[in-house]
């Protein structure tokens, strides 16, 4: 029996009240291309039959590919302790309980997660998390607009194109002007950025490493931004912070990023984890939940949600954002993962990723017709130029058992022959060698 709590009459009354002819009309905003016209389902079958059928279907997906695909989401090892601890029923079954009298464990975990995010980014305060890296960047853009009262945002085109699409679609009906600044040879065009920063600009949005893998130190650009009263927003890859100059050291005002690499499995569409951190002077303009440490009536340390007066359940339409939730379970996984690594482990991990990527560069640059782009230093991801279309190469590499990388032509015109390659600590020397041999074979 389907669980439909309303009767036909209930629904007719509701549709009439909002002035819509039928339920179908509620979905007109979903593009036709994203909708299905109907499911051609056969008659009912037994549970065992259905299971068998779906299991069989699932094997039509490529699986067990050796991954060199990144583009913002990375194939890192997840230690067993992450699943073990995050799946404890105290954490797993509760829907983000916030009552301090009942939820000290959850609140303490969120507080510690915020502390961990502040430590890896070198920032002063972090929120309890947001949906994912892309929406976190949107929240940062809106925060910069609130802080400055300006409506123009400079957007470096080295920012993840998926995030840029999110920025555009979220702000489509808002009064926000984005100005994209093209990269020059895969690197941020700092002269052009500096020249374009003016007293109408709310923020410059940067990414480090950028989408092509280039690592930069934006301290100088950020100084110019501050001279013009602009906010500096930066999206970062958290694992890289074990080795790179941190956003805090560069003077960034708002840091965001995708936390998937911190103990979350790669999964089409998530759930992923957006993190956000800022400076204490901006905390009241930061969206999302924040857990603070305090003392109870008996002087014992405890944890509570703080700064709630600016949020949606109190401020309604004047809230700092419509985000009223967080990715508590994903944030918990990130906290467990970072605690397991520890301070030294976090640095070691970054070093291993960077070194393996350098080894992969050496192997790939030895292939005739392949050029490893070397205009900027990189972390664990880099761009190669192929003698043919990178999308075709990716398809052929799937047959060899590899997820070869991200074909840049998908988002950057004129870069059809460019492939973005990511290397994590999971890739062995042997796998990198086999990958290079397979690539040489398919070219």
């Amino acid at each position, binding site marked *: 029996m389907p669980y439909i709590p309303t009767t036909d009459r209930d629904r007719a009354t509701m549709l009439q009240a909002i002035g819509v002819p039928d339920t179908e009309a509620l979905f007109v905003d979903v593009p036709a291309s994203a909708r299905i016209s109907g499911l051609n389902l056969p008659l009912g079958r037994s549970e065992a039959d259905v299971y068998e059928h779906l299991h069989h279907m699932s094997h039509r997906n490529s699986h067990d590919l050796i991954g060199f695909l990144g583009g913002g989401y990375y194939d890192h090892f997840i230690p067993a302790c992450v699943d073990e601890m995050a799946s404890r029923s105290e954490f797993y079954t509760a829907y983000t309980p916030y009552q301090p009298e009942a939820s000290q464990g959850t609140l303490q975990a969120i507080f510690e997660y915020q502390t961990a995010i502040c430590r890896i980014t070198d920032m002063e305060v972090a929120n309890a998390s947001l949906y994912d890296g892309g929406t976190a960047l949107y929240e940062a853009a809106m925060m910069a607009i609130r802080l400055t009262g300006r409506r123009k945002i400079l957007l470096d085109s080295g920012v993840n194109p998926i995030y840029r699409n999110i920025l555009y679609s979220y702000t489509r009906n808002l009064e926000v002007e984005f100005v994209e600044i093209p990269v020059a040879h895969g690197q941020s065009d700092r002269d052009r950025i500096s020249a374009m920063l003016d007293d109408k600009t709310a923020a410059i949005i940067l990414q480090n490493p950028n989408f092509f893998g280039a690592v930069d130190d934006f301290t100088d650009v950020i100084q110019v931004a501050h001279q013009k009263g602009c906010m500096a927003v930066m999206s970062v890859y958290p694992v890289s912070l074990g080795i790179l100059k941190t956003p805090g050291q560069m003077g960034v005002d708002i840091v965001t990023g995708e936390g998937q690499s911190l103990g979350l499995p790669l999964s089409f569409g998530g759930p992923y984890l957006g993190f956000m951190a800022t400076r204490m002077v901006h905390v*009241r303009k930061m969206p999302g939940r924040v857990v603070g440490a305090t003392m109870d009536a008996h002087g014992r340390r405890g944890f509570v949600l703080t700064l709630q007066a600016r949020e949606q359940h109190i*401020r309604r339409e*004047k809230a700092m954002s419509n985000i009223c939730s967080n990715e508590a379970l994903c944030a918990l996984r990130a906290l467990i993962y970072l605690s397991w690594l520890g301070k030294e482990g976090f640095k070691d991990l970054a070093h291993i990723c960077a070194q393996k990527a350098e080894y992969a560069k050496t192997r790939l640059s030895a292939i005739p017709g392949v050029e490893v782009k070397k205009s900027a230093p990189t972390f664990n991801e880099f761009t190669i130029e192929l003698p043919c279309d990178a999308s075709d190469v990716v398809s052929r590499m799937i047959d060899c058992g590899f997820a070869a990388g991200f074909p840049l032509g998908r988002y950057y015109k004129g870069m059809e022959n460019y492939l973005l390659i990511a290397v994590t600590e999971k890739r062995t020397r042997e796998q990198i060698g086999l990958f290079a041999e397979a690539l040489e074979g398919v070219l």
Partner: protein
Amino acid sequence: MSAKNVYYTKDHEWLKVEGDEATVGITDHAQQALGDITFVDLPKIGKVVNAHDSLLVVESVKAASDVYAPVAGTVSAVNEKLVSAPELINQSAHGDGWLCKLKLFSPAVKDLMTAEQYETFLQEN
């Protein structure tokens, strides 16, 4: 406060006019209703507001509330003491707890209540 140059709004702001400048605050009634005030988001000097525009935000343990401009003008001064001591509003809403000053666009003050009218308004509501 029943001086001739002091006016009140239905949103519980007070306005003290001196020449072409006016001081803005919230009333004692408002501070009592809000409870302990923890933060004042002061406007930037030079901010231009029309009457009824949101001027700034006062945050208390209960809520964050907009304070609206009683009249049109340009923010000419803010009470910097509130940055470190927002409780001044609770202690002295009509004195040391003033919020900001507006350079008035027009000396004529329209649609505002006198102290007596505000008293009556409070009793009726």
